């Protein structure tokens, strides 16, 4: 046994399966080597789940990669410290050859993006057997049978058929299950999960977390989980290490951390986490004439194929959606990926082909030429999810903020300069930053720049598409505060598109829940989030991880019928959902079964 065991000094002497001591990982930068992880020490106790939690840049992923010996070469390296397995094997500085024997056999890892971690040109079966054979876990004859067992282990439906399928034929959740099956193929002692559910929908996330917990119980695997989501931490962890700028801020059992965080940073971090059902009440906006009026909005994309390249099917991205937003009001569109919520935002901005009726500030957008559309555009602007991607890296941020004014011929010369400076101050930036380029700003600052650009034309409506999803929680709160402040002062109407129920709870006056291109439930925030009526809404809400380790989340509600697809053959249209008003302003679609029997 290593010296690490003695250090824990507890009576029952828990057995560490992995001991990290004084780990420092340095990354080469033009200014010399910079540590991204500094003096990190921890023990991973057999059978526990340890969470490394922290915001972006905290070094949590680098720690995982250092343990796996997968640090990006040649920029990053372990500068000092040791990583030891229970039998004393030192992993730091081990040869690649020796590390390959450790990986999969003793430590394996699952990543955030299950699509990119699977090889797209090999079947699931091939990829599973490859791992088994590579590590000599079984003979060639046994391999297919073992592979099937592994898939059954991770509760994939129809496991035998999946073996012959390719990654693109599976959904994101199924791919992550396959990744877990591959990771557990050689029955490793340690499973490192690096943000395993961040790219997944909330209901799928709940299923995968359940699966990891179950497998851990069955196999006795020790889990090192890396996440930024305090909800996931609360649900999964036994112990938590909070990291910040590569340093260990606080290490505590999960109940202790959530109940009484000792360090200021952990307190801040936990305070910033949006909690479903704990949002402050919002002022009731006075009822003014609606500034957005959408009726019968439909967006369909053709799928072409065959020799003649004819339209063979259609993606019914948005079907017959109606909604209104008053000035000073926020309507939140919520739903899982592919439900059409972002497409609605794009249609409003004229970025997707649509039919139906959209009125912005009383002006009908239907049938307008690009030229006729221009004055309407002035009233509606959009903020995108990734501020890095929605800014041009090769233009100074000041010029970009001023661009809408130039395009619409609203200002030039020194007046333009003044307006840009005013906008910068408005969103909490300084005019000195005008001449810089986007890469010189942090994520939160970039989103402020995007907000400044969206405000330049003094629009009446802003479409915010997942505008805080890419930001750390503390920054998220600041940006949401800024949006709220702007709304109160300027009477802006927001269409707030998000998948995150807790964030929606913070910002929305009214909520519309979407599934397969149609709204299934809409009403005030209290109505939809506190007394959900539609089975889909209930299912969504039941899957949200709650940042409270004492909260025992009930199992995710079962899906109501088949997972539908928005792709339909030509001529076949989805059943239009009938809405019933269950309370004043609270509309709920009749459930699928009822709708089918009616049709």
């Amino acid at each position, binding site marked *: 046994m290593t010296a690490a065991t003695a250090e824990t000094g507890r009576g029952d002497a828990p057995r560490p399966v992995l001991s990290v001591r004084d780990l420092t990982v340095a990354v080469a930068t*033009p200014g010399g080597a910079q540590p991204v992880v500094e003096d990190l020490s921890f023990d991973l106790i057999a059978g526990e789940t340890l969470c490394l939690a922290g915001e972006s840049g905290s070094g949590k992923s680098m720690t995982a990669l250092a343990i796996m010996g997968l640090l990006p070469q040649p920029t990053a390296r372990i500068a000092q410290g040791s990583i030891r397995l229970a039998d004393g094997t030192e992993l730091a500085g081990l040869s690649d050859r020796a590390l390959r024997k450790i990986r999969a056999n003793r430590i394996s890892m699952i990543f955030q993006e299950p699509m990119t971690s699977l090889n797209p040109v090999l079947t699931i079966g091939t990829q599973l057997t490859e791992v088994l054979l590579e590590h000599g876990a079984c003979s060639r004859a046994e391999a297919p049978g073992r592979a099937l067992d592994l898939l059954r282990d991770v509760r994939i439906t129809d496991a035998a058929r999946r073996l012959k399928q390719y990654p693109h034929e599976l959904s994101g959740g199924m791919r992550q299950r396959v990744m877990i099956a591959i990771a557990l193929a050689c029955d490793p002692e340690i499973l490192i999960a690096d943000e395993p559910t961040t790219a997944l929908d909330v209901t799928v996330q709940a299923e995968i977390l359940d699966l990891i917990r179950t497998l851990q119980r069955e196999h006795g695997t020790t889990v090192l989980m890396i996440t930024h989501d305090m909800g996931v931490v609360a649900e999964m962890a036994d112990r938590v290490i909070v990291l910040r700028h590569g340093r260990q801020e606080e290490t505590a059992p999960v109940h202790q951390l959530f109940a009484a965080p000792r360090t200021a940073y952990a307190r801040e971090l936990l305070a910033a986490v949006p909690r479903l059902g704990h949002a402050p009440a919002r002022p009731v906006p006075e009822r003014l004439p609606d500034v957005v009026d959408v009726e019968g909005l439909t967006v369909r994309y053709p799928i072409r194929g065959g020799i003649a390249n004819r339209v063979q099917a259609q993606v019914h991205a948005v079907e017959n959606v109606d909604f209104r937003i008053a000035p000073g009001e926020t309507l939140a569109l919520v739903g899982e990926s592919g439900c059409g919520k972002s497409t609605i935002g794009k249609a409003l*901005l004229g970025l997707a082909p649509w039919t139906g009726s959209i009125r912005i500030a009383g002006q009908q957008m239907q049938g307008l030429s690009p030229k006729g559309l221009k004055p309407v555009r002035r009233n509606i602007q959009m903020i995108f999810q990734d501020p890095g991607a929605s800014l041009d890296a090769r*233009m100074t941020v000041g010029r970009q903020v001023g661009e809408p004014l130039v395009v619409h011929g609203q200002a030039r010369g020194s007046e333009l300069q003044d307006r840009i400076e005013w906008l910068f101050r408005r969103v909490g930036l300084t005019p000195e930053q005008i001449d810089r380029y986007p890469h010189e700003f942090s994520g939160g600052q970039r989103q402020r720049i995007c907000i400044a650009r969206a405000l330049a034309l003094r629009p009446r409506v802003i479409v915010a598409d997942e505008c805080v999803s890419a930001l750390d929680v503390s920054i998220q709160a600041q940006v949401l505060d800024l949006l709220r402040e702007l709304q109160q002062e300027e009477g802006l109407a927001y269409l707030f598109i998000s998948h995150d129920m807790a964030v929606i709870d913070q910002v929305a006056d009214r909520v519309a829940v979407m599934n397969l291109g149609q709204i299934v439930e809409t009403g005030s925030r209290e109505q939809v989030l506190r007394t959900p009526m539609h089975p889909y809404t209930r299912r969504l809400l039941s899957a949200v991880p709650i940042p409270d380790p004492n909260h025992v989340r009930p199992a995710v509600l079962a899906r109501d019928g088949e997972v539908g697809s928005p792709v339909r053959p030509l001529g076949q249209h989805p059943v239009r959902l009938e809405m019933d008003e269950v309370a004043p302003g609270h509309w709920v679609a009749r459930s699928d079964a009822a709708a089918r029997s009616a049709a």
Partner: protein
Amino acid sequence: MSGSAAVSATPVRPGAGRVLRQLMVRPRSAFALVVIVTMVAAAVLAPWIVPYDPNDQMFDGLSLEGAPLPPSAQFWLGTDLLGRDLFSRLILGTQTSLIIGLLANGIAVMLGAGVGITAGFLGGWVGGILMRFTDLMMAFPALLLAIVLAAIFKPSLLIVAVVIAMVNWVQMARVIYTETRSLAEREFISVQRAMGASTFRILRLHVLPHLLYSIIVFGTLGISTTVLLEATLSYLGVGVQPPTPSWGNIIYENQTYFANAPWLVFFPGLAIVLLALSFNLLGDVLRDALDPKLKGRH
């Protein structure tokens, strides 16, 4: 703002002066600039700086046996089969090679980038037709095409340049097409569309600056391939016609004597390699210097 502390204190705008200074401080590009400036100077000043008349078949330019002379104090780079001073011919050849290199490549870059951007950004049937035509040109053996074109038109400096451009624009168009396609899907372009900016404005301010990287790299790489293609054409006898010297046709004229007088092939070959290398190095550094993200790195 906490993040602003990490931001460099002095914002720098990319200006011509700053870029030039950057080019001069880096050894790679400083070397390239010196070579290119020297060659341009040699080309411009050729009539005044050549030690001998490049076309004069000198009596003392051959040995008693009638063989060309190796490099010596009198003829710095030796003489060719007809007793002409190789150094003088190389200097005059610089003129031809540079004109062809810049002219042919300039046309190719503009044509290729134009086709690539149009097809990539507009897509649809316009893009389809343009790219199928590009594929057709690509499938055609470049050298055969050049020879056919050169045979139809009477070879002159301009015609040779145009012929080379007709062959060379295709790769450029392909590369730029692919990049524009992916750029057109990016979010900051969607932002511009949503804003109501005109297609021309989007292309000029938000697409072209991002393509500069590829255009410069491929453009400078193109200069070397162009010079080499001109050498090939001259070598095959359909390039620049004698007695006008170009680096290519100097090699062509003297290749048979390579074993006995290696300097006749070595020096023009060296000139071609130097020019190509210099433009590639320059393109490399220019690309970094123009990227705001890589400011101040080497």
